[in-house]
């Protein structure tokens, strides 16, 4: 199953950053196991642009549409057997301790 893992920041991280797992090691390990297909860190929300079309009119605005304190700062595309495996992959990601990880399975559109 493919999962999009959104990496989200927390407003006030309460973890000692020196105790976080090494992200490079995490990437290398999960890439070599075939569990991580791709992933990246996103630019800041100040670089974001929101695009909408309403009544046929294109609306482009600066910033993310919803102004929230916690933002998506990156993503990883995972390929795991099931949710339990995806949770295991997520639990070892440094941002699991400093922020939050949201696992979203890809919708099955085959029907």
């Amino acid at each position, binding site marked *: 199953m493919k999962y999009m893992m959104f990496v989200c920041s927390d407003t006030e991280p309460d973890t000692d950053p020196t105790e976080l797992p090494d992200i490079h090691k995490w990437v290398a390990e999960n890439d070599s196991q075939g569990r991580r297909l791709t992933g990246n860190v996103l630019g800041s929300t100040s670089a974001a642009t929101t695009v909408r079309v309403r009544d046929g009119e294109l609306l482009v605005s600066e910033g993310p549409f919803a102004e929230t304190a916690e933002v998506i700062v990156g993503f990883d595309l995972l390929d795991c*057997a*099931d*949710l*339990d495996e995806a*949770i295991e992959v997520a639990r070892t990601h440094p941002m699991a301790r400093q922020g939050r990880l949201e*696992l979203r*399975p890809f919708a099955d559109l085959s029907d």
Partner: protein
Amino acid sequence: MPTRAPAGAVAAAEAVAAAGVEAYPRIVATLIRVTGDWALAEDCAQESLTVALERWPADGVPTNPGGWLMTVARNRAIDVLRRATVERRKLHDLALLTPDDASPEPQVGQDVVDDRLRLIFTCCHPALALEARVALTLRTVCGVPTADIARLLLVSESTMTRRLTRTRTRIAQAGIPYRVPSGPALTERLPGVLAVLYLLFTRGYVADGEPAFADEAVRLARLLDRLMPEQSEVAALLALFLFQHSRADARRDAAGTLLTLQRQDRDRWDREAIAEGLAALDRVRHDGPYAWQARIAACHATAASADDTDWPTIARAYDALADIRPSPVIALNRAVAHGYAYGPAAGLVLLDAARAGGGLDGYPLSVAVEADLVARQGDRPRAAGLFREAAAAVGSAAERRALLDRAGELDR
């Protein structure tokens, strides 16, 4: 399939009910494993019970009721899938699923054990909301009809049907595996499973609760204990349930008023349940939260009278419990235990400490505890006032009556 002589309709209905309790979750578990389709598995299991209700009065109860139900459910599933025609491999697996009709006892092989455990652990997966876990466990593992679950959880039947459907869909879409976790993950997940059982039991046990919840929780704890005899916290939870449950018939007087432990007629306690609980507690080899609670409950269950209760042992157990699972309610119970073990003054000191954190603010039982301690110190008017204060704040009518009765006695 060999059958006994035709039975009366009532006897047949009872046989269906009895076989259903044991066979339903087994059938559901097996069909989910083979087809992966939760709704199909439940429908077919239900269907097999319906067919049994039609056939058994005339044909007689089969020698292996569980195997009979399994065969009917399996054939029904094959029918449904054949009509869908796409599920070739599942059809093949289903066809291979031949229950052992000859044995009088349904098979208790490793597969069956695993199937039912899988079912419990999947229903109680932490990625499901707690309410969804409870509902799905009742429906799938206990076979409680959706209408009854809706009534127990105070929602309409259509709402519950939608919730259950959504939960089954979520299991499929989120990729929640139908599996018992192994190694450290099992240890991590087991408390969640036990918490669902504890919640079920508590809902059945509280003053205005539905006894059926407690019955189901006891049944599930027994099942889990049989499937995981090496897990000592499971045995502890089962023991705890059995001790509490043994008092079910003695907790109210003829007028329906709740009776405290001190006032219950101990001859009405279920001695068999207590013996079963003690046997389970005997296998507990650790000091987890359920173990301490079970030891406390055992002290009450084995005391010949309220005066004979071993309060110092109970007080020590609450000390340990407060250490590993600190909570306002445990701190309150600890104050009660110390109050009986070492005198009301000792209890009041701990009650003050328990209230200091603010966690007991607006908790009427904390006032009732104070009332009891003050009464035992001899200040009857103040105690009566406190009991009335607690009665005014308590939510359940049965508890309010009990507290007002205590106040009335102190006025005399």
